[in-house]
């Protein structure tokens, strides 16, 4: 294949990776930014979203788009509810202590994963995409659905940004992130904000999973890769920075796509990890992060 089309394919692949990664990492970044909690179970919320999407699409007969749209709404809500329960019965009991919550979310990771294995099973199961359209380029074919994932993800990112910057809820969240105690002194129900943010973070991961599941099936171990990549993105972009997360997701996604097409996927991972190391050495707060207060 000639260089031009090859690069086009690589960029398209990278864009899809970046789109899904941005959503997942944003959830992780939000939870860390506002709550100062490193949520190791974030990838499992992603997996849960995919598994629920499978369950919902199989339960709903008729046109595949119907089931998919239902999954797009219901799966994140259910995952959000699970996150809410986890926040209530686990994180709040630990007073959101940073060290204790790391251990607790590791526990949560295993609980969710093993429950999925018990009730969903070890198989990878496919979800039918809402539409099957193959874009025929002169050099190769490409999935129309994949491009729609990029568009949907961009829409969701803009929506999240609007919520955070233009609504009262967003302002309350930002106030809590900026200074918890002052926010509390001003009458902001910090614990409810925490609960809401934790659920929102999980829901973002779940939405990303529902979008990606028609491309790569639902499997109970699928949460590991997104978790690792999300951490890479969040560290590079700066914990708690929405802009940083999106920019870093684009960098990591595109470089992963392009480097793995032209060289090798292993090299792409090496470079991503190397970037993390460099960021940690020279700019520990991340590209767009502010130094911790």
């Amino acid at each position, binding site marked *: *294949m000639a260089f031009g089309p*090859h690069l086009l*394919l*690589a960029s398209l*692949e990278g864009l*899809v*990776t970046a789109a899904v990664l941005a959503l997942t990492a944003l959830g992780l970044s939000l939870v860390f930014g506002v709550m100062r909690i490193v949520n190791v179970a974030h990838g499992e919320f992603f997996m849960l979203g995919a598994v629920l999407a499978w369950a919902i699409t199989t339960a709903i007969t008729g046109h*595949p788009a119907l089931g998919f749209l239902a999954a797009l709404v219901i799966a994140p809500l259910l995952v959000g509810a699970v996150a809410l329960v986890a926040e209530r019965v686990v994180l709040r009991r630990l007073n959101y202590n940073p060290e204790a919550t790391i251990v607790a979310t590791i526990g949560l990771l295993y609980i969710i994963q093993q429950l999925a*294995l018990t009730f969903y*099973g*070890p*198989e*990878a199961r*496919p979800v*039918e995409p809402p539409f099957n359209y*193959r874009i*025929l380029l002169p050099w*190769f*074919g*490409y*999935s129309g659905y994949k491009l729609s994932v990029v568009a949907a993800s961009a829409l969701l990112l803009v929506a999240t940004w609007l919520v955070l910057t233009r609504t009262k809820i967003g302002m309350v969240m930002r106030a809590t992130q900026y200074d918890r105690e002052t926010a509390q002194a001003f009458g902001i129900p910090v614990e409810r904000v925490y609960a809401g943010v934790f659920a929102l973070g999980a829901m973002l991961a779940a939405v990303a999973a529902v979008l990606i599941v028609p*491309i*790569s*099936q639902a*499997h109970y*171990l*699928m949460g590991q*890769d997104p978790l690792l990549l999300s951490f890479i993105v969040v560290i590079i972009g700066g914990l708690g920075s929405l802009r940083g997360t999106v920019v870093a997701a684009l960098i990591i996604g595109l470089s992963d*796509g392009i480097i*793995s*097409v032209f060289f090798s*996927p*292993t090299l792409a991972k090496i470079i991503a990890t190397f970037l993390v190391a460099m960021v940690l050495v020279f700019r520990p707060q991340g590209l767009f992060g502010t130094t911790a207060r």
Partner: protein
Amino acid sequence: MTDSKGYFDLSKNRLSRRTALKGLAAGASLAAAPGFVRYAQAQSSAPIKIGFQSHRTGIGAAYGRWYEKTTAAAVKAINAAGGINGRPVEVVIEDDGTDPGRGAEVVAKFANQHKTDIVFGTLFSHVVIGSAPAAGENKIPYFVVSEGHHVASTKLNRYVFQPGITDVKSQIQAMAPWIASNAGKKVCQIFPDFAFGYDHRDYLPPALKAQGGEVIAQIAIPPTESSFTKYLPQIPAETEVIYHVMVGPAVLTFVKELGEFYGSNRPQLFGFIDSLEAVDINSPGLEFLDGSHFWEGSPRYAQADDSEAQKAYRAAVGIDDNGAAVGDPKDVSTAAHMFGCWETLYVVKKAMEDAGYKGPEDRAKLVEATEALTEFAEGPEHPQGKKIFNGKIHQCFGIQNISKVEGGKLKVVHKTSIEDGLYEPEGDYTTQAL
């Protein structure tokens, strides 16, 4: 009391309290004596314990579940027919998480804690390679159902056997002539970047070359990869056959993306069913495979010419004509491999009977008796077909099936002969010390 009359009449010979107490004490001390009771039972009725190293979790979980089902069915059949050497067979299951490190621990646990007679049932090649040293150190026979070439390569040790399923090197050699003459001569290989994939990488090129074919590109894919479109441009344009071996959950994505990339204008496809074990061939996105060919150890779909033994085996394991669990058409089996569990257990039975196996102290005898086996006839114990066994390399050789995807089913279109897959042994385990 007249002794002359009542002497032999036991009813009249009253048991004194002193005798009764003496007898009781003697009996109790005998029962308490270490080893005595266990030994007595081992001689008679204590079960033969088989340690089943199962992939219950991890990437091999779907295989593990069906390996367990097949093993349970075989053990049930063996026990119903009187067990091994008159003793019932009991299976002890430990999960290895499809992880080599955990696998070695499980083997040691079987040897030292459960004190099983043998270890059995591993599929994934990296787990076998990781666990084999532990089997050698603990001197416990380790019967794997893995299909990798590692056992036959004689790089493991004398305690490791693969008597129930043909190894990859032999499979490839047997099928290469069919590929070269029916699918195409210019082959591009796509394989997972670990042990099992390397068997394909190393043995297909020479096997094809011998048939006038050629491997023009080899694409290794990391086993954790979840997206494949980025690898597809590496497939040379002049490729006639894409030879794909994928394992793990991402295979559906692989096929789907291949379909999106090529559309209807695709090269021939030849794959190992390993990719699609436990996966419904009619899953959305797999339409692209229609008309392509697969290797199958044992056919998933019931075939018109199935033997009585094959039918009985399918019924015993509980799979229907589509290779799915009876009563649950969505629960597709790993039919191409799991027959190996059934056949291996019957090989163990035969070897234990030949050795007059009594307990763990006879493990060395069991190894020698297994090595002395030469062939297994087709029948209820070996429903997949006849096999010959090479005791020097601890490996069996059987027939292979090439199946075509047709109308949403896999139809066997070619069966290789055992001779097609024979190769020169690379070593000799029997020269190693026991």
